[in-house]
């Protein structure tokens, strides 16, 4: 410093304070990203991306669509709509044409709405990620509530707008179509097993089979350094970064590099990078399933049931994949890579920003608004979900942040129900296809039902017996659909 004036030093100190704040904010972002990449991504999202790719490339859409024809009984078409939602609509670009198709080609408004409601909340990526980041109970609550309310809202919409929704002419769109082949089913089952083996917390999976201690002098020092960079903080839910985590992040980076050519160009034929990518992926999954801990003298490696099962399943995938034609396998890998490229960058940025924003949110604010399972708290969750638009899956780390800040699980579920279903974009698409009146009725119903879902789940967490809740909910649904049915009949009578 040349200017040693009093004013200058004050200014400098001020800048230092800002610098420190900026650094700590950035550190929070990086820390949230690092612990996210190390802990959550590997054993759940990596298999989930491969499953999503397989569903998109290997399951012919027609095999599910054919159950949606206007002649199909109601229960078949509603369950097929829900199935289409979770099986086919992994990305938003399939949702729009399928929704328009289901609606315009005869299945009618009800199943179309069920599809629209169920698809974003219950596809394999959203569910497995929710399960790992927030806990299995949240994932189960999400799928059960989304399923029952999706069908409920679909039926209510069908009743309200019964007039003018007489089945439009069906044509060949629903005809024929091949079923899902047995080899595809087996392959999908093996992938799902891999996903489950990597994420479930059963004793026989987590128990150590045997351990070796590798002497590694600089291990403890490295772990201590990592602990300084990414501190563990139980109060805020920050998980820290282990040596294993660091290793896995490095491997993820390598996979990304190899996959750029290996999976991105796979539809021109398999290349060396393809095999490298797949090998690295398998290695990473097995390593992630190993227990690696730093001790005073080195590294303690523990072989768990999980690592054995994961390794066996990876090995099993190879002969299963060989039963497909090469073109199908190429399509599978290409679709997988497309999903990763489309969703993963958004997730990384989202998780980083969540870590940054977290610094500025006082837990007291969240607790004051949604700390307990009140009507107001649930409404707040819904409103936040409607007005904030987050890209696919980013709602999950955000929900995790709210949970660690003291949000009650009830309003959290209300938020999780509303956020993916209602966004400006989805409202616009919906109203372009079915008209403004129907679209806004749908929005109102989703808001109502999300609040209800939050209240019900919150009450269950607070100890209300499940049976009471089920009865109350069933009663409410009956009342609602009954009165709507009466209104519908009344309207029809006056018109005629």
């Amino acid at each position, binding site marked *: 410093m040349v200017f040693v004036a009093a004013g200058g030093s004050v200014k400098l100190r001020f800048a230092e304070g800002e610098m420190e704040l900026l650094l700590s904010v950035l550190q929070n972002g990086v820390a949230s990203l690092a612990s996210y990449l190390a802990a959550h991504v590997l054993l759940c999202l990596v298999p989930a991306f491969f499953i999503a790719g397989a569903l998109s*490339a290997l399951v*012919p*859409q*027609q095999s599910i*669509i054919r159950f949606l024809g206007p002649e199909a009984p109601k229960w078949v078409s509603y369950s097929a709509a829900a199935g289409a939602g979770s099986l086919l609509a992994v*990305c938003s*670009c*399939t949702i*729009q*044409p*399928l929704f*328009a*198709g*289901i609606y*315009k*080609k005869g299945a009618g408004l009800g199943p179309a709405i069920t599809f629209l409601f169920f698809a974003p909340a219950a596809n394999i990526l959203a569910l497995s990620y929710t399960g790992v980041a927030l806990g299995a109970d949240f994932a189960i609550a999400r799928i059960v509530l989304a399923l029952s309310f999706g069908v409920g809202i679909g039926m209510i919409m069908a009743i309200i707008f019964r007039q003018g929704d007489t089945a439009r002419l069906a*044509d*060949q*769109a*629903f005809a024929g179509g091949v079923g899902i082949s047995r080899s595809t089913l087996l392959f999908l089952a093996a992938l799902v097993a891999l996903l489950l083996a990597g994420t479930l917390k059963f004793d026989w999976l987590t128990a150590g089979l045997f351990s070796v201690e590798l002497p590694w002098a600089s291990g403890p020092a490295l772990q201590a350094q990592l602990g300084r960079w990414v501190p563990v903080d139980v109060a805020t839910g920050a998980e820290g970064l282990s040596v294993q985590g660091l290793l896995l992040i490095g491997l993820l980076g390598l996979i990304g590099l190899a996959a750029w050519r290996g999976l991105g160009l796979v*539809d021109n034929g398999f290349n060396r990078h393809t095999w490298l990518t797949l090998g690295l992926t398998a290695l990473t999954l097995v390593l992630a399933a190993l227990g690696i801990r730093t001790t005073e003298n080195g590294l303690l490696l523990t072989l768990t049931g999980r690592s054995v099962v994961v390794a066996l399943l990876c090995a099993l995938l190879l002969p299963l994949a060989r039963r497909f*034609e090469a*073109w199908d396998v190429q*399509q599978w890998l*290409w*679709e997988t890579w*497309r999903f990763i490229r*489309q969703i993963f960058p958004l997730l990384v940025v989202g998780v980083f920003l969540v870590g940054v924003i977290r610094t500025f949110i006082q837990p007291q604010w969240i607790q004051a608004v949604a700390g307990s399972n009140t009507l107001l708290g649930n409404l707040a969750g819904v409103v936040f979900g409607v007005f904030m638009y987050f890209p696919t899956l980013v709602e999950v780390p955000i929900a995790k942040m709210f949970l660690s800040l003291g949000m009650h699980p009830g309003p959290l579920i209300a938020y999780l129900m509303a956020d993916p279903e209602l966004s400006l974009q989805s409202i616009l698409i919906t109203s372009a*296809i079915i008209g403004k009146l129907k679209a806004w009725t749908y929005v109102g119903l989703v808001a109502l039902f999300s609040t209800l879902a939050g209240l019900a789940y919150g009450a269950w967490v607070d100890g209300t017996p499940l049976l009471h809740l089920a009865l109350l909910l069933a009663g409410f649904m009956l009342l609602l659909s009954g009165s709507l049915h009466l209104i519908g009949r009344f309207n029809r009578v006056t018109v005629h």
Partner: protein
Amino acid sequence: MLIKILGSGCAKCNRLEQLTREVVAELGLNATFEHVTEMDKIMAYPIMTTPALVIDEVVRVAGRMPGKDEIAGWLRA
């Protein structure tokens, strides 16, 4: 020959167009390409799933990615 690709401009649809163009070039055929993105025009065909390939107003495939050999077979027909 008029070849239409139906799809909302998603990655799969672009890929299908690229593949078909490659096959057309390999076979040395003369074809006009049209990429249909408007939902109403897409829905005028008896399909519900995209991407779809329409050759001379005949829907050849919808909702999945055909292989190059398959495309070549339709183009020769």
